[in-house]
């Protein structure tokens, strides 16, 4: 632990970058293409997507923090197992809390909360960042990556719920009079509810991001 780094302010430019970069140029979903499976599964409605985003952020942030604090004592031969135990513990805690306070959301997310354990983003950040960095930057890195993941989830869920169900967070957004069954002209796009459209929406997001940010283009 060098003296110069201890004087570094908590939110120095370097530390802030740990949060902002995963939102855009180092986004875990659209750039690193990690954690796609849950992004497809929980984005049919906005509310579960938001809860999933918060849950993953909490788990990445705290598993990064804990592993970073333990990093000097972890025997290298069992480090993956140690990481898994930390992640699994946090995920079970999140699951218990969801079951106790937001039971209907917990029911919708069902197995996907448990599957946070296998979310590649979390393991990826532990291996790539937390094992080699001090606790505070690791914590920020976890929050950043969790938010980057959540941001994409929420964008995808926004379009899927709006176009697929005509609602946002369960509130009717597209006026009921517009619908064909009420004598209007509008019909919900049933395809938006199904997983393939999540993939296509995600693809469109990646396309927009890459056309805006030329640095992401491969040669």
């Amino acid at each position, binding site marked *: 632990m060098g003296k110069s780094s201890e004087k570094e302010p908590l939110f120095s430019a370097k530390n802030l970058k740990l949060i902002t970069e995963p939102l855009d140029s180092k986004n875990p979903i659209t750039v690193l293409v990690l954690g796609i499976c849950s992004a497809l599964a929980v984005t049919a409605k906005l509310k579960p997507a938001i809860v999933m985003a918060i849950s993953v952020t909490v788990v990445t942030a705290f598993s990064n923090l804990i592993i970073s604090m333990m990093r*000097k*004592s972890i025997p290298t031969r*069992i480090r993956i197992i*140690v990481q898994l135990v930390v992640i699994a*513990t946090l995920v*079970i805690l999140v699951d*218990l*809390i969801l*079951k106790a306070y937001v039971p209907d959301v917990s029911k919708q997310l069902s197995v996907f909360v448990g599957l946070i354990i296998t979310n590649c983003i979390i393991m990826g950040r532990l291996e790539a960042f937390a094992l080699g960095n001090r606790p505070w930057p690791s914590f920020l890195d976890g929050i950043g990556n969790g938010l980057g993941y959540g941001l994409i989830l929420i964008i995808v869920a926004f379009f899927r719920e709006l176009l697929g169900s005509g609602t946002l967070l*369960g509130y009717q957004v597209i006026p009921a009079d517009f619908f064909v069954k009420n004598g209007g002209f509008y019909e919900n796009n049933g395809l938006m509810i199904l997983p393939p459209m999540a993939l296509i929406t995600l693809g469109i997001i990646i396309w927009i991001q890459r056309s805006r940010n030329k640095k992401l283009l491969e040669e």
Partner: protein
Amino acid sequence: MSILEKIRKVDKNSNAYIFAYASGMVIIVALLLAFAATALKPAQQRNVETEKRVDILKSIGEANGVDQAKDKYDFVAGLYSKYIVDQLVVNSLGDTIKGVDAFNIELHNELSKPIEQQNLPMFVAKLDNGSVKYIIPVRGKGLWGPIWGYIALNNDLSTIYGATFGHKGETPGLGAEIATPTFQKQFVGKTIYNEANQFTSIKVVKGGADRSDIHAVDAISGGTITSKGLEKMLYDCLSSYQAYFNKLKKLSNGQE
């Protein structure tokens, strides 16, 4: 610091260190999770109770506004005490059993006992218009796991007033359709006894039931095993109540 320094000097790749590290970690994690599970148990229990009450209320179509309610637990408890006027426990011989709380009976425990020893719960609802409905809980097996439901009968104890079903993890879009209103609406107006007062239960017919058949509903295409399980569940659970139903019927005939 001396202990910390000692730990730092230990060979981290020695078997003893790895073994101690793993054991220590597991013990800490186990304690933590056990503590969390115990601390959150009451809140989870409340949710399970609320869900059960909502299911019972849904079978008589009185669970409106539950999703909008601010305090779901109190709101549901209020509705429940308003509509559910009585709950009783009977056995397969038709006797009522005193001293057992119908609401807290775990149906899957009862169903694993021999039929003579089963405590069968039953709920009596009184609607706003004064009509009385009998609500029978049912439970059985789907394709992947348990399925359950509540059947509300009119006071002729034969005509179905409403039905609601739930499942643990049936295939979405196929077996899981039993939890949708479209499937459940089919049961309204069907009867579980024929004119000769013989128990027929409700058949779940693959390929579509005959419209004129008042003892049958359509099965779910692609959800054959769930549909079959549902049919068996209805037959098994409702038939256990026959003795009690007959008693009730005799009683009301005697009064008339």
